[in-house]
């Protein structure tokens, strides 16, 4: 009986040992597989880096200073900018501003307000509305008349006018024109 128990115990230990060895072997295989993948990835990175370098060099060659100068001579004829194309200081920049004309649209201003009481989490629309609803007495900010013309405002006004002038026709209008053209050609 003792012999049998000893045999069983030995067999058990052998099985445990075998299991551990199998687990270790599996782990080693797995580690080696991952290591191989890493090595392959490194190989790929090296190849891609070299390709990248090669293509970058090709680009640099095609965009070399001499090529660009030759291209400019043949195609574009750009010349160096003159002093009239530079503004020496902010005062010269401000000189471009014009007084606001009568009946001109309101200038677009960046929103301003005291956000000390507003938590960071309240930047969503709902919370902002809730905060606004809580202050029914708050009067809308009156725009103070500016004493002198603002360059920013002049730019915005010009941009708005330009946008009106260059207002693109809607897709429906374009499509209607297309249909008319097509019908005419048929």
């Amino acid at each position: 009986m003792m012999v049998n128990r000893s045999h069983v115990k030995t067999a058990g230990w052998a099985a445990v040992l075998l299991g551990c060895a199998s687990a270790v072997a599996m782990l080693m295989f797995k580690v080696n597989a991952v290591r191989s993948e890493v090595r392959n990835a490194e190989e790929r990175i090296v190849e891609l880096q070299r390709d990248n370098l090669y293509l970058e060099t090709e680009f640099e060659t095609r965009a070399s200073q001499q090529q660009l100068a030759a291209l400019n001579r043949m195609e574009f004829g750009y010349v160096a900018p003159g002093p009239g194309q530079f503004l020496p200081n902010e005062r010269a920049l401000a000189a471009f501003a014009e007084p606001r004309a009568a009946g001109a649209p309101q200038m677009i201003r960046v929103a301003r307000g005291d956000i000390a009481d507003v938590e960071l989490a309240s930047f969503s629309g709902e919370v902002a509305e809730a905060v606004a609803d809580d202050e029914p007495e708050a009067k809308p900010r009156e725009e103070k008349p500016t004493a002198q013309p603002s360059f920013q405002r002049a730019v915005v006004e010009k941009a708005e006018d330009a946008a009106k002038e260059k207002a693109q026709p809607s897709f429906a209008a374009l499509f209607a024109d297309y249909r008319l053209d097509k019908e005419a050609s048929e």
Partner: protein
Amino acid sequence: MSVALGGVAQASPAFRLHQERRRVLYLAKIRGLWIALVFFALAVVALARIAWLGAVEPGAQPLSMAQRLLPERGEIVDRNGVPLARAFHARALWYNPQAIGDGGAPLVKSPEAVAKALAAIFPEADEGRLLRKLKSGKPTYLARRILPRQMAKVHALGEPALEYPPEKERFYPQGSLAAHVIGFVDADGEGKVGMEEALQDRLLDPAGRGEPVALSIDARVQGALEDELMAGIEMHEAIGAAGVILDVETGEVLALASLPSFNPNRIDSDGAQNIFNRVTNQVYELGSTFKPLSVAAAIEAGTVKSLARRYPAREPLKVGPHRIRDSHVIGDSLNVPETLIHSSNIVTAQIADELGVERLQKTMVDLGMSVRPEIELPARGHPLFETKKWSRIRNMTVSYGHGIAVTPLHLASAYAAMVNGGIYRPATLMKRAPGEYVEGRRVFSPATSAKMRQMLRMIVVYGTGRKADAEGFRVGGKTGSAEKPGSGGYRRTSLVSTFAAAFPMDRPRYVIIAMFDEPTGNASTYGQRTAGWNAAPAVGRIVPRIGPMLGVDPDATRDIDLSDLKPLVVTEG
């Protein structure tokens, strides 16, 4: 007993055979033992060697990714990181007729079809030449440095004889741009001529070659300088040109051009003739560009106390058997600004004579004129500079740029010292870190420098340098047209025309030297070939191109204050 002994003494043959057998066996055992010992010793040695290799000597480690990405030779970039020289693994298209190896035809398709397909992939290749190579049956290159997409297309042809082996290349993406600065690498991997030679050890150092070496050169500025100088060569039919642009505060060289140039990617016989660097290796008598330096030395020494003082200018100056004359009679007398504006040799020689030999010679030495130019390039010419005490006539001729021959880089460094407040600093091709300060040595006082800035600007506004007056850039400078020496004296038909300039003169930041070798007069210059007609206009075209790149915007509302000197100059109209 005696019988027994007698028996032993008279041993039977069997006994002797036994004895002999025992002796042979013993000998065999001893020999076997020796052989075993030898094998044992060999085994011990082998084991010891294995242990040594395993424990002490490092084995062949596989290269890490970083090591494989490390270039064989470090990259050279300009001050903004634009690559000027780099090593990379390229692919070549190699024709190997033995690839199939069955003794049959080397190509699957006909050579004509393959040549046509290759010509479609490589538009720059000559189809007839490709066909001859394919038909020759000899292994040869069909193309070098092919692109990955070209390689894929060749692969798609399905020809085993077309191979693309990897090759290590040193490539210069900007071609011949700044070729004299960069240099090239020869077939043995040795850097030649430019910074490739000067930085040879650093570029190969495994610890440092991963980081690119930044030069002080700005590729955009270099491109503009070379472009305009080349246009000048064509316009004035000169045999060559040189130019340098220098930061007056740091001595950094922003651009350095010697034309005609060479292509470091392909050194052929034509290119080899142009390797000589005209900016740092060729010495010239740079003529009247020396006059401001002489005047500055006289102001500094106190021999010129008033710029309004007038000197006689009508008659040639007699010094022993020599006569110093001007190209034409400028007037009865000239003051100092007029002397520079009209470039009078007679008056400059008088100013130098008053200054004295020692002081002018010392100024020239302090400006680095007596030694090779201070720069990292290996190609640096020895100036023709009389080191012993000058004679009176040499002192006077040197004052207007004759009897002394220096490189254009010498002149650039001297002008930088003259306009930057008076500090001489050596030129460098290495990018200086922000805030890196070079001590330098004081040659002129700030007051002298300020006066010279005014007078250089006046030369461009009122004098021979008018064509360099790029609007809004406040250029100041001096023209110089010197006859080239030949056998039996100066050759009147061969000029070296130079314009040495700085801008903006209200606060100088850059010095430009433009020089043309043997320009000719033509209809566009009304037959003139002096610097005011070729070198000065070149500077006038270069400055507007490079100014905005270097942070100097044109401003027509600003200029250096000339109000105190303007009344001294009789202007036309």
